[in-house]
């Protein structure tokens, strides 16, 4: 499954590629003929990046392209073409395919070069990655005066799963795992004021990781998202257990025995989370396993929890505390371990 960040990540891998033939032109020539081995390769690069990142359908709506005019027309035909005015350039997004002419004409027939938008700089400018600029793959800064327009591929929408990604990530990494990290950092209160969750582990992300590490007293290489930082970030994103001085409004003990069910009524708005603990460690029993079903205005949702006295107390934060009015807990184990609960 493709995405804009995967497309950009692929493009970044080729920074520094130079000369003809190169790996990109060889790949393209293997499908379309040796005439492309030494052909101008800016659009060949875009084609290969799209194919290698799972974005062929989005970036190449009419198939492989080496001829930029045809490629731009492909976007125009599917109504995903934006003329290169300064106002439009400021609305470009990372991953857009940007086409150039050098006479400020904005006419598709005058296009002879292409690249991918990596960052939108404002003021009618973008920072790009381009193949075959100086016969190499480089980053450039381009303005509306040299941009005929851009095509917006129908990339698969990225959606954060709400979790911190697994370690390790560091400066220079790109892609959706970096976006996961950036979203997680922002959710944890860190700031990425300029670039946000752009999938690019740059200076801003290094600073945010360093800040998070400092606040959480994590001894790990500053700015590198390692295993300790990952564990702390995931913990920071977990539902906050009530503090000692929070008012515990409801508490009790689960019914024991296999498949035993414990129904709990909650007055809407009284509690925001429910937590569990058990004493399996005393008798060296296996951890308890329970299915927790919660009811609110949208209906039921459920989650299976493992309650192990050797691990932190598991909590579920209600998705809509204002309308949460009931919890039903079913033992998924043999019911041998006594499990208590509280909600506050």
């Amino acid at each position: 499954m493709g995405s804009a960040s995967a497309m950009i990540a692929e493009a970044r891998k080729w920074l520094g590629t130079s000369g003809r033939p190169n790996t990109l032109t060889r790949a393209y020539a293997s499908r379309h003929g040796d005439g492309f081995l030494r052909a101008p390769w800016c659009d060949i690069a875009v084609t290969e990046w799209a194919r290698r990142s799972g974005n062929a359908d989005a970036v190449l709506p009419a198939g492989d392209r080496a001829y930029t005019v045809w490629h731009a027309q492909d976007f125009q035909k599917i109504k995903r073409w934006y003329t290169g005015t300064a106002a439009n350039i400021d609305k470009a997004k990372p991953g857009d395919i940007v086409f150039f002419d050098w006479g400020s004409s904005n006419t598709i027939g005058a296009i002879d070069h292409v690249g991918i938008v990596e960052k939108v700089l404002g003021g009618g400018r973008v920072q790009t990655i381009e193949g075959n600029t100086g016969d190499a793959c480089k980053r450039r800064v381009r303005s509306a005066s040299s941009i005929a327009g851009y095509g917006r591929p129908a990339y698969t929408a990225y959606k954060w799963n709400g979790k911190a990604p697994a370690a390790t990530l560091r400066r220079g990494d790109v892609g959706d795992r970096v976006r996961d990290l950036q979203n997680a950092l922002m959710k944890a209160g860190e700031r990425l004021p300029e670039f946000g969750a752009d999938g690019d582990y740059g200076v801003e992300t290094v600073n945010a990781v360093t800040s998070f590490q400092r606040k959480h007293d994590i001894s790990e290489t500053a700015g590198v998202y390692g295993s300790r930082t990952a564990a702390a970030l995931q913990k920071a994103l977990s539902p906050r257990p009530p503090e000692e001085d929070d008012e515990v409004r409801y508490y009790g003990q689960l019914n024991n025995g296999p498949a035993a069910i414990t129904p709990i009524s909650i007055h809407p708005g009284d509690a925001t989370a429910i937590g569990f603990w058990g004493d399996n460690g005393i008798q060296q029993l296996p951890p308890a396993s329970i299915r927790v079903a919660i009811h609110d205005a949208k209906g039921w949702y459920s989650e299976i929890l493992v309650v192990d006295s050797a691990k932190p107390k598991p909590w579920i934060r209600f998705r809509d505390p204002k309308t949460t009015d009931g919890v039903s807990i079913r033992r998924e184990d043999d019911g041998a371990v006594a499990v208590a609960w509280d909600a506050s």
Partner: protein
Amino acid sequence: MTDPPPIPPEAEPEAHHATEADEDRVLVDIYGEPDPDGFYRGGG
């Protein structure tokens, strides 16, 4: 898939050069100094 595309013509010289006077400064600001070959490879 449509017909294979034609071999494109060489791009105008501007395609091969910086067209913004402050390009290096902008790229250094985002990515740090270029490598010895002049490529900006850093993370932004």
